[in-house]
């Protein structure tokens, strides 16, 4: 057992953080800078990070969940506004079905963003959502079509604008009656176990994003507490403020420890065991990130409640990462089902 980064993983972490910090938004106004956004997306693509979960030729992904979580953490820390988890998860799903990846594709989700969208028949019957794809232009979104004991992969087209709360990643609606198109080259049906594993990757990446968000927003709050003066002193010298920030730091560290495990487990443990690890991390990270982001808003005082202060960009992104694949309430409900034998419907 050695949970430290390998030298390669440590180098990847450094590179990803540097790139995200350089090209991510520093101010709310930066969110409108199309040139910067293009450079960031290009850099993420150039680095090969969107291909981490592509088939390496033997059915296994090119890189493990640990590497993917390292990137997700780094992008979260800088609220980097480039698609990452969306395309990576889509490629992972295609790999599991033995299908070649579709450039720019993401997965479509149920209206609560917890489960992959399941569609029977030639068209969608209810509205579903594509998460974390390109902000504009048409894109493909994977849906699952039940067949026998498993699922066949299919796609629907996304062409609506994003209407999501997160100002850095998209949530694009796919209306009812969207045509469902076959994915011709898939070589196997997706099993329950495939989907458990895939969901574990989703839980690990959304948790890692939350860990990065916590680190990033806490750095901002600590810097602000040092610089902001009241009563003739830096507000960071007051214990009332110090203790809020100290608690936030502890939550971030605990969340990081909890998240490393599922990011490793997705490729190394049985699917149900790995998914439990993912649920633990997600439940912890969701609660922790909410508190840490709220603390950062509070420490920024009146400024923290204005649109131009970047802190709400972190909070908004945390809300999406929390809901995507299920928040703390959903994970605790599922843990009751799997660990306490609580039947569906018992509340």
């Amino acid at each position, binding site marked *: *057992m*050695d*949970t*430290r*980064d*390998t030298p390669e*993983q440590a180098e990847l972490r450094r590179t990803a953080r540097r790139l995200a910090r350089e090209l991510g938004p520093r101010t709310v106004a930066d969110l409108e800078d199309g040139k910067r956004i293009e450079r960031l997306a290009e850099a993420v693509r150039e680095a090969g990070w969107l291909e981490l979960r592509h088939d390496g030729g033997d059915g296994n992904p090119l890189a493990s969940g*640990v590497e993917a979580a390292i990137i997700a953490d780094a992008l979260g820390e800088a609220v980097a506004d480039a698609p990452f988890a969306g395309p990576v998860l889509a490629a992972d799903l295609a790999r599991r079905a033995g299908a070649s990846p579709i450039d720019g594709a993401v997965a479509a989700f149920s209206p609560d963003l917890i489960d992959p969208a399941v569609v029977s028949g030639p068209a969608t019957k209810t509205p579903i959502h594509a998460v974390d794809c390109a902000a504009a232009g048409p894109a493909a979104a994977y849906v699952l079509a039940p067949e026998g004991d498993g699922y066949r992969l299919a796609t629907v087209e996304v062409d609506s604008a994003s209407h999501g709360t997160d100002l850095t990643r998209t949530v694009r609606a796919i209306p009812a009656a969207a045509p469902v198109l076959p994915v011709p080259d898939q070589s196997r049906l997706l099993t329950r176990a495939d989907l458990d594993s895939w969901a574990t990757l989703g839980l690990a990446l959304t948790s890692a994003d939350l860990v990065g968000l916590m680190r990033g927003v806490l750095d901002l709050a*600590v810097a602000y*507490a*040092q610089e902001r003066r009241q009563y003739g*002193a*830096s507000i*960071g*010298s*007051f*214990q009332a403020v*110090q*203790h809020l*920030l*100290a*608690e936030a*730091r*502890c939550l971030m*560290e*605990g*969340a*990081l*420890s*909890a998240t*490393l*495990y599922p990011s*490793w*487990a997705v490729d*190394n443990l049985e699917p149900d065991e790995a998914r439990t*690890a993912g649920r*633990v991390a997600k*439940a*912890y990270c969701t609660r922790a990130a909410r508190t840490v982001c709220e603390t950062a808003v509070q420490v920024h005082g009146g400024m923290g409640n204005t649109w131009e202060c970047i802190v709400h960009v972190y909070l908004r992104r945390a809300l999406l990462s929390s809901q995507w694949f299920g928040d703390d309430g959903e*994970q*605790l409900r599922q*843990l*009751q089902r799997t*660990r*306490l*034998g*609580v*039947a569906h419907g*018992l*509340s």
Partner: protein
Amino acid sequence: MDFRDSPAEAEFRSRLRAWIAENNPRLPVSSTDDEYWARQAEWHIALFDAGFFGLSWPTRFGGHDLPPVFDVILDEELAAAGAPPRPSLGYLVQGITTHASNAVQERLLPGLISGRERWCQGFSEPDAGSDLASLRTTATRDGDEYVINGHKIWTSYSDVADWCFLLARTDPTVPKHKGLSAFAVPMHQAGVEQRPLRMINGITKEFGQVLFDGARVAAENMIGEPGEGWRIAMTIVSHEREPGEVGYVARYAKTVKDLEEAVRADPGAFRSDQRGAVAWAYVQAEMLRLHVCRRLSERLGGLDHGPGGSIDKLLMTWVEQTVGTAALSVAGSGAVIDADDVALKIYLYSRAQSVMGGTSQIQKNIIATRILGLPAA
């Protein structure tokens, strides 16, 4: 990054598992029953004699020189079997190995690690809690000895201790942090009186106070140099704050396992808030287990005596108190009707965690100033 057991770790785990299955003493839940503390020494000795205690400590003192992550395996297996946690002595061992001369280490560590000699820690005093450096117990040189006078309190295991790791003032003329020295003081002598303290959950065998009235200690039993006491105390408390050092993860995981089993036996008998409390306690205990994996893995690259232990202490405190609250919730009216209810005692005992080893407020001061770099208040 690899959470899997290496071949050596897997072999150790299976040997340990087989031994626990044969030798679990089935003690009451720790810190809820005096019988636990009465029989804890037996457990320590059994664990040591079987080769499962002091895993990462030097072989010449009875340890095994194994990588620190072996303690993760020990905690996991003890919890899974519902066995008592390992004895919490790591911080004293760290204090002695870091600061004491070789001669003192050779004299004191073997008995401490083997469990043949019992230790307590004499730091806090009635008027020196968080402000530890203001302590007033004195050690005055008299020939080859020091004479000890003073009053220590909130001293764990003082009733069974053979030795006290004592912090006392040897020089009243210098600033308060600079006039302290550390000693290994024999407890069995005329000038030492031990008085039990009853904790809020009713147990009397864990907690005490110690009165020193002309007690004597050989000068050669000083740990480190004269005036080095504060630095030594900080080494000890920084490790006392680490869940990897004290082994409490096993205690929390065992309680969570018991709570899960109680609910699983009849889920419909529990309200959703009770079940939710158990699920959240599981999340917290797992987080701490993984946090200890991470911290002990970091030690593979060398030991750090930094302020990070304060983060770990707060996480550990939140976990213990979450687990305690879940136990209380699951017990329902049982905890109110029956003062001997185990869940009630777990809950009440959990309140001490935010005080012992430095209050949560002190930990936050340390994190704010020494980790976040905020100005001292």
